[in-house]
């Protein structure tokens, strides 16, 4: 009975499986008057790998936050699989988020939990069955190469390792969409590349990856679609694009 109700909830959302995000003429003005986005039009298909580049304060973060509904657009329409996100009721948003993983520059790990517990926490929070949690968490820690370090606390891990734990946490509920907001921002080049190979591996398994970045070397070496945002509008959207800025 419970699983039937669960099924009903999810089916009304239609986010199971593939996710296609479209934005039509999206504006975002914050309450303090800052105009972050001024008419964004974009479509991201399932399975793509997208870099979002642009100067600081250009609106990259806002652009990304709209995708996982951390912010709502002031004007315009965001469609997820054809469904207007604005029309999705607040209580349904968590079920949308379960299919979108998010990774941050500062990892956002819980300091009083081990690597294992941090990853497991994401499954407990969505009330996954206990017997599944252990197996799945081990699987994810193996994927990110931290199986041996699962009992270490974040303070005992390097920055690169912490970021890999946070990627494991983002992926543990098997989302089809992964958002990374400057995931290599705090890392040295070597660790940055480890993270990039990991994201590419995840992408090759079918997960869409959208990544905001300031890292010129990565964008110009690992060629993917590049969306450049300046002053709240998309000024460039190229397949196999370049970074295009000097910093």
């Amino acid at each position: 009975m419970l699983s039937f109700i669960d099924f009903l909830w999810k089916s009304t959302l239609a986010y199971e499986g593939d996710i296609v995000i479209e934005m039509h003429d999206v504006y975002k003005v914050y309450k303090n008057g800052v105009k972050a986005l001024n008419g964004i039009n974009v479509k991201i298909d399932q399975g793509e790998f997208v870099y979002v580049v642009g100067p600081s304060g250009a609106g990259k973060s806002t652009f990304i936050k709209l995708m996982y509904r951390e912010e709502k657009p002031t004007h315009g329409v965001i469609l997820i699989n054809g469904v207007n996100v604005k029309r999705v009721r607040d209580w349904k948003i968590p079920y949308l988020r379960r299919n979108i993983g998010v990774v941050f520059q500062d990892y956002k790990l819980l300091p009083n939990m081990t690597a294992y517990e941090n990853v497991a926490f994401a499954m407990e929070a969505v009330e996954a069955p206990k017997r599944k949690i252990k197996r799945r968490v081990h699987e994810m820690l193996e994927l990110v190469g931290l199986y041996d370090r699962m009992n270490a606390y974040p303070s005992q891990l390097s920055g690169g390792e912490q970021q890999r734990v946070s990627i494991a946490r983002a992926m543990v509920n098997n989302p089809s969409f992964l958002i990374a907001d400057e995931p290599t921002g705090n890392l040295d080049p070597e660790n940055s590349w480890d993270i990039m190979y990991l994201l590419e591996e995840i992408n090759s398994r079918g997960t869409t990856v959208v990544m905001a970045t300031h890292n010129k070397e990565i964008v110009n070496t690992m060629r993917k679609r590049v969306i450049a945002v300046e002053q709240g509008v998309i000024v460039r959207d190229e397949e196999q694009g370049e970074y295009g800025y000097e910093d």
Partner: protein
Amino acid sequence: MVMKIDTMIRHTREAINSLRRNTWMVFAACSAVAVTLLIFGIFLVFAFNINYLASELDKQVAIRASVSVSATDDDIDQLKGQLEKEPEVKKVTFVPKEEGLKQMKAQWGDDAHFLSGLEEDNPLPDTFVIEAKNPQQTERLAKKIDQNYRLIDHTEYGEGVTDKLLGLSSWVRNMVLVFGLGLAALAAFLISNTIKLTIFARRREIEIMRLVGASNWFIRWPFFIEGGVIGILGAIVPVTVVLVGYNAVVNILEANNAYSFFKLMGMWPLSFYVAGLTTLLGVMIGVWGSLISIRRFLRV
């Protein structure tokens, strides 16, 4: 809202951990709840007893209608039938004058010897004892019987004792309502502050839970439980104090014959009601406090 037992245990564990973390805030919040509930508990004891006393008195507040000496046995039968047909009347009992004298002797007790010898030439009238369906109609019914029945000399009844008691009860209730609401609001405010601390202490966890798609209820539950537990903890002391105190008063009154007219409600049903209602109110205040903080600080 549907929840697995695992999840429930998890929420309860979270709630208890937070309670341990903020011992002093919890203590302050519990104390505020305790003061509120103590007043509420004492009021409940009063209210139950006043209602109890009033209903006991109502049973005694019957109209005594004296039958004219000129009435024959047939008249009395007829009269009884007529009285029973009055819409306000619940019960009519005929008390012949011999029976009336016996009752009077029983009431006078040790002084009954003043009445001895009256059996020969009983000065008492035959009476009907009439109970109204609704005690509030007693006065009107008495007047009506006085006016409409030729063979009834006069009527008397318990002269508003009940009214005074019920009036006192509603006055006490209003006072408690005003004070109690103020105190309850204060207690809820203190609880909401405690919950605010917990929300603050757990803000990173909450952020992660929201990110990975924990349902809103999954995030809220531990805070409701925390508030509810504070309410229950706050109820322990006042319930104990009120019941032990009441038990002592009942014992004193029972031991001392001078107060025998004061009949208090027994310990058993009262303690059950008082403990239940007080704890329930404690939980409600706790959940109210949680709700304030959840709405202001949790944004889910």
